[in-house]
């Protein structure tokens, strides 16, 4: 019975995310299985591979790592890096650190919200952009900064927003 159940969960994941991603994640689990306390590392990998942690992924981790689902859900919601919903194609990480705040990040946020018509933590209807402010990118000297899919834009004013977003359209 156990074997059948396992296969079906894995099959669901393959259907949703494709075989490559699931295989990659299974390898990551193998790397960590024997290391005590490595649950967060596994979840970090899952977040990176799948882009978010839907319930199927959490169940799969629970089953493979032999940790109750409640604990996994608790961790998923505790740490800000883990998300339960998928992000847009382009993730806008606007830095909300102190240095950026002092140099006007709040105005940038208003401008982006207005431009995309979404609130913090939301994704545009076409699934293109999601707005996820972040604590500190550590590029304080270039404040205010934002990062879109890893690319950093610094010394921004609200007027730069249109042009930058255009690049990704």
């Amino acid at each position: 019975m156990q074997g059948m159940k396992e296969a079906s969960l894995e099959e669901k994941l393959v259907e949703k995310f494709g075989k490559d991603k699931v295989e990659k994640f299974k390898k990551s689990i193998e790397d960590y299985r024997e290391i005590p306390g490595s649950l967060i590392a596994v979840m970090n990998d899952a977040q990176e591979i799948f882009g978010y942690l839907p319930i199927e992924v959490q169940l799969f981790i629970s089953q493979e790592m032999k940790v109750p689902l409640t604990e996994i859900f608790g961790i998923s919601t505790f740490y800000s890096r883990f998300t339960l919903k998928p992000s847009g194609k382009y993730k806008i990480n606007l830095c909300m650190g102190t240095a950026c705040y002092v140099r006007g990040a709040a105005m940038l946020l208003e401008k982006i919200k207005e431009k995309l018509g979404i609130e913090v933590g939301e994704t545009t209807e076409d699934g293109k952009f999601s707005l996820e402010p972040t604590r500190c990118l550590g590029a304080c000297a270039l404040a205010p900064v934002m990062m879109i899919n890893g690319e950093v834009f610094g010394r921004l004013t609200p007027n730069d927003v249109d042009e930058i977003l255009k690049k990704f359209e």
Partner: protein
Amino acid sequence: MLYRSHVMVCGGTGCTSSGSDEVAERFIEEIKKAGLDKEILVVRTGCFGLCELGPVVVVYPEGVFYSRVKPEYVPEIVEEHLLKGRPVRKYIYGESLEEKAIKPLEETPFFRKQRRIALRNCGVINPEDIREAIAFDGYKALAKVLTEMTPEQVIEEVKKSGLRGRGGGGFPTGVKWEFAYKQKETPKYVVCNADEGDPGAFMDRSILEGDPHSVLEAMAIAGYAIGANHGYIYVRAEYPLAVKRLKIAIQQAREYGLLGKDIFGTGFDFDIEIRLGAGAFVCGEETALLNSIMGKRGEPRPRPPFPAVKGVWGKPTIINNVETFANIPPIILNGGEWFASIGTEKSKGTKVFALTGKVNNTGLIEVPMGTTLREIIYEIGGGIPGGKKFKAVQIGGPSGGCIPAELLDTPIDYDSLTSAGAMMGSGGLVVMDEDTCMVNVAKFFLEFTVDESCGKCAPCRIGTKRMLELLDKITSGKGEEGDIEKLEELAKTIKATALCGLGQTAPNPVLSTLRYFRHEYEAHIKEKRCPAGVCTALLSFVIDPEKCKACGICAKNCPVGAIFGKPKTPYVIDQEKCIKCGTCIDKCPFGAIYKK
């Protein structure tokens, strides 16, 4: 191979963000084209400190400092400087230019007052090549410790140095080590806290990116001192470059036999594992960090028992911050007395700060303890941009406080900062000018704490939320008499009753702004006015019809299309649409727009 010249291109996060990768590639390409690739080496280093002027390039042996280098400048620098020996003055950092000469980097105002101990190799070596670290005395202190010193002697030396924890609390490092050394239970663990969560601070990140081996070496030394064979580095996943360089460094150290079994043939084993944080500020608190290392929610627990008694897996553990560790090898090599000769009576050595905000030279600095805030902001930092007036400097992040202009001559040390209502914290220094509203700053930090409170204890979970609601009320113009007193009462209760350091220090930003800028709170409450012109609910932007020439520049530049008008009639701002960004004020050529 011996090179006649080295081109050091900063590969820190600041410079990488401003495009230093392309600059480095261009240098490699152009140097090859000029046939100089056997004579000149391009090195990607860690942070030089002057991030404001990035991408930064330094050419040795002369020490010529090029700032804000664009890829298109590179052919000229290669042709003129590297080939013909004539530095290109127009791209050189202005402060180092003299009429007929170029000053070495160390003599410019930004560097003159600094003393680099923890940052000694940042910007000097290629952090991805262990041989460069070794050439700069890397692992020499570990060799000394393992071959010439007993654990007791190591602890004695660290105690003698007077080194105190650089992560915030300022607990004497040697005493912490001794405590763990005396524990009978085994195995023991060494943990490096690299969960730098303070927004506006990037000291630890710069050390990990610029000189990861100094931290690995120090952890091994600590392991020898307390009797541990295993170390964990707990680092934020948000620091991908630091994680990558740490992984490379650990791998190389293992290959060279500097980590792993039987180090230097002395029979001492020590290895290090990286644990990634997943974004929770509270994990900087040591008991929360321990839980996170063990793969649990990062919730703190009451102390005692201290981690030195019950830490990772319930075993004796020392937890030190990155910068604390980076100071250890020089202390071992030069002696505790040498370190203790730097700094003030109770705060020894140097401190690294991330200098940011409204200051000309933003970046990473390291100064002897006892340096005054004025020296840091006006001499090293080059003062406030745009001729604005200095208002306050925020130290210590969400747990710290704001220090006003009257106290600019406060020396930087643990005790002076605490008595000024701030704290050393991990070393974020955010400069604020007259355009910053102090009530809004307090609100900014409270928003942060409310968001990051883990929710385990009521004073922090509920108390900070209530404080934030009061601040919201005040900044949106609904403040009433008595609100300030309520804030004070809540602050005192939270400080006295919260479970961990995060909660106990959360009210500090409010208390310190109340202490020095009470008049700003009162102006918001009694006069419904924001003196700095920040709190948007309390101000509006208007165009003076007398002064407006109907040129339309404001309307063209308004990012939200809130300004309307026709030729020859004064323009008007739609108050509903206006986001109060201030662009129109900056753009109006006639000074016709103002806040009221």
